[in-house]
């Protein structure tokens, strides 16, 4: 039986890489062996891609309008106006897993929490340190002395190293902190369902209305315990100081999150997110042996409640750091590794598939659709950039030899050119939309920096190829080969 499960697990681990590589290899083979069929496929793919990008851009515009509309709402007053007797009892607990981040990164995050308009006597902050990091205690003491008086409680937890069954992941640390929070909540005799827990990255800065917005959505949800609450992550903390291409990658990441906020059936938790503390306890906390704890918590809850679980989009932003290095090459490496870690989210596929096998309550069609969504997003991620920027232009370069004077040999470069330009028009729209997502420009920004902000969009094809698809293909290949990734810390930079 165990052997069967192991075999199935490996099969599901290999499947995404197998499909992605097959798509790429088949495209390449067709390009040189069967150019006519290749032309057919590439035109079909290009039209599919253009229509898809236009469709996604329309969703982005919808989400963007919603974000702008809800940006200046007074959420706390709106929550107060809801006819719900529980609104006065809700505590907001914030767990901040910390690894090597110092007070320079943590202070702005805590200041942002302090500056929210949510009643502070209803806020519990849990700074979750790693015991194995040398200066954790010192950092905890500094922060406690500065912030303990501002909140109902300010706890510091220290996650011990080497607990059996755990990996050195953010999820393991957050789970340890959540268990300590449970002890505190039990002591205070607070009901679990009266606590909303938010797990934030160390660099996450929330808006003033964040907890008001969260409370509003929590109270207005049909079943608040069967929901996760997902804000829109933006990378504004240091965005003006990051190199252009790192900036564009992060803006694009925010856009994907915005687009998915409209596709509710695909919308899952990512990075900083919130949920009921009772739900977190019921589903046995975040996974302690996986890197993708942020998305897996959704799947744990989804499976635990037999599919009766959803993610509610909150059109309010949480701001994080753009990952970048000392120079362009280092930034490229940092970005590549960070995106590979995100793409490692494919590890949820074997997990979900094995759990689906055990679960008899979720209808087969729903399981199939969900599995397709996971595969679709990850396989598109790993392949479309390479197809568009590498495989697609290949036969155009060699068209004279490949198509031997056929009409398609002349038409293919022109048609793919037109379709590519249509994609560029949508990029122009993305560029304009990005202006409203960005924070105000710092005063010390030079004229050249302003020029760079616009010209950064010229990097799109390069970024698409290098940081778009390859980290995802890399992550999938590693999973297929059984070379499991461990959590890699992304250094935060503020200037």
């Amino acid at each position, binding site marked *: 039986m165990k052997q069967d499960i192991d075999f199935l697990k490996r099969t599901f681990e290999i499947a995404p890489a197998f499909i992605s590589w097959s798509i790429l290899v088949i495209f390449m083979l067709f390009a040189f062996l069967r150019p006519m069929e290749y032309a*057919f496929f590439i035109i079909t793919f290009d039209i599919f891609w253009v229509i898809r990008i236009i469709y996604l851009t329309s969703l982005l515009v*919808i989400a963007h309008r919603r974000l702008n509309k809800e940006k200046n709402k007074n959420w706390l007053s709106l929550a107060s106006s809801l006819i719900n007797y529980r609104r006065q009892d809700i505590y907001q607990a914030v767990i901040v897993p910390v690894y090597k981040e110092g007070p320079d990164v943590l202070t702005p995050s805590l200041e942002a929490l302090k500056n929210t308009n949510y009643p502070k006597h209803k806020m519990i902050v849990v700074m979750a340190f790693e015991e194995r990091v040398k200066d954790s205690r010192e950092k905890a003491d500094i922060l406690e002395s500065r912030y303990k008086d501002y909140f109902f409680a300010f706890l510091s937890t220290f996650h011990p190293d080497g607990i059996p069954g755990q990996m050195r992941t953010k999820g393991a640390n957050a789970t340890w902190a959540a268990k300590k929070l449970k002890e505190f909540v039990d002591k205070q005799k607070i009901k679990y369902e009266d606590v909303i827990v938010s797990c934030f990255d160390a660099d996450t800065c929330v808006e003033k209305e964040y907890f008001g917005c969260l409370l509003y959505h929590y109270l207005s949800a049909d079943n608040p315990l069967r929901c996760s609450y997902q804000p829109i992550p933006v990378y504004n903390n240091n965005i003006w100081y990051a190199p252009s291409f790192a900036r564009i990658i992060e803006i694009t990441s925010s856009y994907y999150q915005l687009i998915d906020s*409209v596709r*509710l059936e695909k919308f899952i938790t990512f990075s900083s997110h919130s949920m009921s503390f009772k739900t977190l306890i019921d589903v046995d906390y975040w996974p302690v042996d996986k890197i993708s704890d942020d998305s897996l918590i959704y799947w744990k809850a989804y499976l635990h409640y037999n599919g009766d679980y959803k993610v509610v989009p909150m059109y309010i932003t949480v701001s994080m750091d753009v990952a970048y290095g000392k120079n362009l090459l280092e930034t490229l490496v940092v970005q590549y590794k960070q995106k590979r870690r995100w793409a490692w989210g494919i590890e949820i596929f074997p997990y979900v598939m094995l759990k689906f096998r055990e679960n008899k309550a979720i209808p087969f069609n729903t399981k199939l659709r969900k599995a397709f969504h996971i595969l679709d997003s990850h396989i598109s991620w790993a392949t479309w950039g390479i197809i568009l920027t590498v495989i697609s232009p290949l036969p155009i370069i060699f068209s004279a030899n490949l198509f031997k004077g*056929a*009409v*398609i*040999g002349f038409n293919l470069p022109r*048609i793919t050119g037109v379709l590519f330009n249509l994609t560029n028009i949508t990029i122009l729209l993305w560029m304009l939309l990005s202006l409203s997502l960005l924070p105000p420009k710092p005063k010390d920004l030079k004229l050249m920096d302003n020029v760079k902000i616009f010209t950064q969009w010229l990097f799109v094809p390069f970024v698409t190829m290098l940081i778009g698809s390859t980290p995802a293909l890399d992550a999938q290949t590693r999973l297929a080969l059984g070379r499991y990734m461990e959590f890699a810390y992304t250094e935060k930079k503020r200037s």
Partner: protein
Amino acid sequence: MQQKLRAIFFYLSVISFFIILPLVLLYSFGYKLDINRFRFIKTGLIYVQAVPEGAKVYLNGRYLKKTTPISIEELMPGKYKVSLELESYYPWSQTVSVESGKATSLDNIIFFPKKPHLSKMNIVDVDDFYMFSNDKDYTYCVSEGRTALSKIRLNSKEQEASLLYGQLDLPANVKDFSLSADKRKIFYFNNNRLDVLYLPTEKLNYTQPKNSNFFILTDDRISYAFWYSDSEHIIVVTVKDIKIYESSSQGKNNIITVLNLNDNHAKAFYDSAEDILYFTDLQEAVDGKSHRGLYRLDMSNRSPFSFMKNMEE
């Protein structure tokens, strides 16, 4: 509302995909809808590219209201006359065949101007002129009854000539001129005399450097002569032999006979970049017959030029 809008966009996208895809695919592969017979016909195209661009395009005499480069599409298989017109240039036309699903490419068209871009370069009368591959900026002109040698700058907006020599007595049957690699000397030869001229170093210096010019007299008629890459030696191929003369000794000392030749009509080519002489010569074989061979004589400093190699019979 948001989900309704999304659904509308989704279905619009799906419908667009299924409408646009077949149309684009058919167009790409050259299919055209024959409305009268209501069926698709596989057509061909003619691609026309010409230099300069912008020529008017006529197909079977009908003006297409388009200019080159152009791809004339959706053509039924058959013969078509393509005519191109560009103002101030000679027209061009050709009849080409179009096959279904194939592209006929006309991409080697060059328009020649009706009024050639003609400009006069010389100031005085020119009897003869020489151009050298190692000095592409100038042409060397013999003029005024073969007594003067001047050089004229090429590709110059204004006429720019400088007189190198004014009192030469060039024979009428000069076989060849050659400029040394350092561009400081010229030799010319006819029959068995080779004259070396030192060129004035300054452009406007008309005076001849004294005691510099010299000539070489050979026993046999000179067929070819070449400058060695150092500009100080001259390789002379006569009907009897191959000799090397040293210009620093005015061709009087250090004369080396490299080879004796049997071929009165030997052909020679000198690769001045590599200092290799290629030539033909006759050689008697064991059967007593003479065979003409092509030889390579490596005279570069890199290898001693004592060996010959029969490359080809």
